[in-house]
């Protein structure tokens, strides 16, 4: 079980689930203790494929019955049979799964099931299409759209119902990077503007960061990390989560200095400065995102900066990760990762064994207390 940070929001919890368990045959697909989503917030369900994200979404969205556990909508226990509750939810999936017919037929589908009169239906459809930047597309065939357009229609089809909880299952992962980048921003904006409670399934941490307020990271059906996005991303609660999120495991240390909102943490002999408050002697866990770690050549004169953390170390490995290089460093036995551009790797001639200077700001260090002084 991962660590949990309390989720609080003055609007209260929109969706909650306890002890959710689902098996297919003998295989446990989902086994999650609790899920909470505050009204108007977005929960990102992150994890590799096959981790049980979609199954958990289907259970929370009252599309599938769990073997054990209970889902609560606005505090009331609800189930798959609960038609009223089910109609307060709407989903869009990875493949848009548009129905044969026009775009308007598709967007109006849920309204038709709810017996909304034709006039109001038409109004709501054109409004929803406007929300997703497809105004005036009503009469086009749904089966002639590009991936991005189809995904917008799928979102409009769910948004038009003004659901209490919106479920999005990897809505962007089948798109090419250019459209995906744009739609991630668009979706995040739309969800925010509608201040809709949302469950967003993805295997892409950037997407999760862009849309999520809180997150659950699933591995083999179990929640290995759970809490606010910044906390989980900043200080992953365990090694697997850290590697999954593309950083080195968090460092365990003891606070040795605390003054004016700045603390010094002793991590195996290395003192790392972090912004925060803590008592001297407290046990803490710290994490530094690879994006925040800057490297300089071993003998370079470093420009004066506000960065408090400055060490010498050596390169353990250099791996290409898409457009960036993931460089793992050893600083007197402490491991950190840094993301470096291709140009920098070439210029500095980075390779295993290279001596480098490692610099990062105190404000880039995330800290969580794990034990008292």
């Amino acid at each position, binding site marked *: 079980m991962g660590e949990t940070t309390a989720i609080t929001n003055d609007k209260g919890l929109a969706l909650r689930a306890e002890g959710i368990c689902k098996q297919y045959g003998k295989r446990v697909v989902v086994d999650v203790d609790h899920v909470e989503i505050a009204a108007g917030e977005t929960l990102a369900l992150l994890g590799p494929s096959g981790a049980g994200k979609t199954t958990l979404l*289907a259970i929370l969205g009252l*599309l599938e019955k769990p073997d054990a556990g209970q889902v609560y909508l606005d505090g009331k226990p609800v189930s798959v049979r609960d*038609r009223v509750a089910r109609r307060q939810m709407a989903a869009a*999936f*990875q493949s848009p799964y548009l*129905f044969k017919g026009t775009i308007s037929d598709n967007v109006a589908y849920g309204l038709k099931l709810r017996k909304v009169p034709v006039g109001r239906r038409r109004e709501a459809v054109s409004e929803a299409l406007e929300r997703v930047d497809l105004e005036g597309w009503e009469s086009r065939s749904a089966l002639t759209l590009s991936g991005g357009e189809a995904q917008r229609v799928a979102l409009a089809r769910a948004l038009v119902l003004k659901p209490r909880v919106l*479920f999005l299952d990897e809505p962007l992962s089948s798109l090419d990077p250019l459209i995906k980048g744009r739609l991630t921003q668009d979706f995040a904006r739309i969800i925010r503007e509608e201040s809709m409670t949302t469950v967003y399934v993805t295997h892409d941490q950037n997407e999760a960061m862009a849309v999520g307020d809180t997150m659950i990271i699933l591995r083999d059906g179990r929640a290995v990390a759970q809490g606010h996005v910044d906390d989980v991303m900043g200080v992953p609660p365990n090694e697997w989560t850290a590697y999954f999120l593309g950083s080195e495991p968090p460092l365990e240390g003891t606070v040795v200095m605390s003054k004016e909102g700045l603390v010094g943490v002793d991590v195996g002999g290395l003192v790392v400065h972090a912004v925060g408050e803590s008592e001297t002697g407290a046990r803490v866990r710290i994490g530094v995102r690879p994006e925040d770690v800057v490297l300089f050549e071993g003998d370079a004169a470093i420009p004066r900066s506000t960065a408090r953390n400055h060490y010498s170390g050596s390169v353990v490995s250099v791996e290409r990760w898409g457009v960036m290089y993931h460089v793992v460093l050893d600083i007197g036995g402490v491991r950190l990762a840094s993301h470096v551009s291709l140009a920098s790797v070439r210029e500095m001639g980075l390779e295993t064994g290279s001596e480098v200077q490692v610099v990062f700001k105190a404000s880039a260090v995330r800290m969580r207390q794990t034990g008292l002084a």
Partner: protein
Amino acid sequence: MQVFVEAIITAFALLFEGSRELWNVIVVTFRVAILSTIAGFVLGVPMGFVMGASRFRGRRLLIALTNTGMAVPPVVIGLVVMMTLSRRGPLGFLGLLYSVDAMAIAQTLISSPIIAGLTAAAVASVPYKLRLQARSLGASKTEEALLSIKEARLGVLAAVATGFGAVVRGVGAVMMVGGNIEGQTRVLTTAIVQESRRGDFGLALALGIILMLITFTMNGFLTWYQHSNERFERG
């Protein structure tokens, strides 16, 4: 070759004359075919949907049985229906043997497994997530089923057309339970058997041409419908 030339000339003469007897045979043929296709549709499509779209114990067995049903020789079905409806049979009291109803019953037993089996295949090809999507927008079980069938409509239509075709072209079962009574239970296929046995190839061929025209019209319609759908999908 003489025999063909003569037969074709007679056939067209008969077709253009359109004797009462000929029309009667056509009407009975359609009555039996339409009745048994509708019954096959009502029984076969829901059963096909259940087999194609849901998971339950015994599903595979049911599919295997249905597929067997699709291949059972019509004469065997004719035999069973005949025994059931015969005076000593369990439903003998209905007095249905050698009637249009009896033929429709036998032909329904032929058409419904065909329609069920092909509908199951068509519905199974509708992605599960599409149904999950419909469910997530508030669809009930029935609405979800209707949507799946609508999505698979070309396949379902082909299933119904195949069922209709099997019924129109069948001869064994209708011969046995209908009895080929002139003016009552004589249909195109049994009439062809009758006329060719009598050596009246002209009439038999005329009936054969009509039968082929019916099949051609059916398939033509289906192809047109399929094509117009594809065109729609391509935009």
